[in-house]
């Protein structure tokens, strides 16, 4: 997973050649963001979401059934919250 994540590097000021190539190709930034989701550091959040939701739910229930059900709801809630923050940051990045 380490090696896979190393392959994608976001364009920045340290890669002027890459930036000029991207602007020449006229690739919208949104598409780059979506492409980055498939092969990016965002996947490192997934094990954390699973572990946090399971352990948090385990402190709320005693039986395995309710724990797993609550963990699913909490996991969806965490991912949804992170998605909302992602959208807010994306909108802010358009204005800046």
């Amino acid at each position, binding site marked *: 997973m*380490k090696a896979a994540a190393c392959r994608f590097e976001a364009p920045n000021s340290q890669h002027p050649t890459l930036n000029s190539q991207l602007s020449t190709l006229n690739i919208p930034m949104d598409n780059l963001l979506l492409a980055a989701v498939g092969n990016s*550091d965002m996947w*490192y959040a997934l*094990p*954390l979401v*699973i*572990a*946090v939701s*399971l*352990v*948090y739910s*385990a*402190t*709320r*229930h*005693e*039986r*395995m059934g*309710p*724990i797993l059900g609550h963990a699913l709801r909490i996991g969806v809630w965490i991912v949804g919250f992170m998605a909302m923050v992602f959208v807010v940051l994306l909108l802010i990045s358009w204005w800046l």
Partner: protein
Amino acid sequence: MLAAFLAWLVPGVGHLYQGRLGKAGLCFVCIMSTFLYGLYLGGNKQLGWGRVVYASWREGDKRLPYLCQIGMGLPALPALVQANRVRKGNPPLWNGFMAPPSQARGDFDRSGQPISHGGFDESGRVTINKLHYDMNRFFELGTVYTMIAGLLNILAVYDAWGGPVFIESGRKDEEEEEKAEDEE
């Protein structure tokens, strides 16, 4: 109280002591795997594993994440042993596992030979600059994973100490289920 201490010492052992086997397994697997994956991300063969967990309170390197990582208990305690050894001037053990890095410029190679930007100090200890340069964002990722594992274990310790924090409606449901099972 003993259960809480055991839960801090090794994730899940407090619940095991109480006979809550399912939760013991869940806590052990979730928390230990998060911590171990963090150690894997924050190290490599050349620099040593587990470099993201170390205890340091030196000027310029006050390692606040360790306050969260110590929540893991025994798995994070080798960092205290290594910090104590380094403070006394002894070389770290276990290829630098959980040892505090040097704050020197790093103009030496691993064997102590002078070389510009070698990344090691005179005694062959890796410098903090080289750790960040070589591991890049994985140093931060490993730190975050191990910190979260420590914080999750604090939740597990609380659960072992005080039992589950029931949500009001959920408690009724679970009590009814238990009554139904007892009647059967």
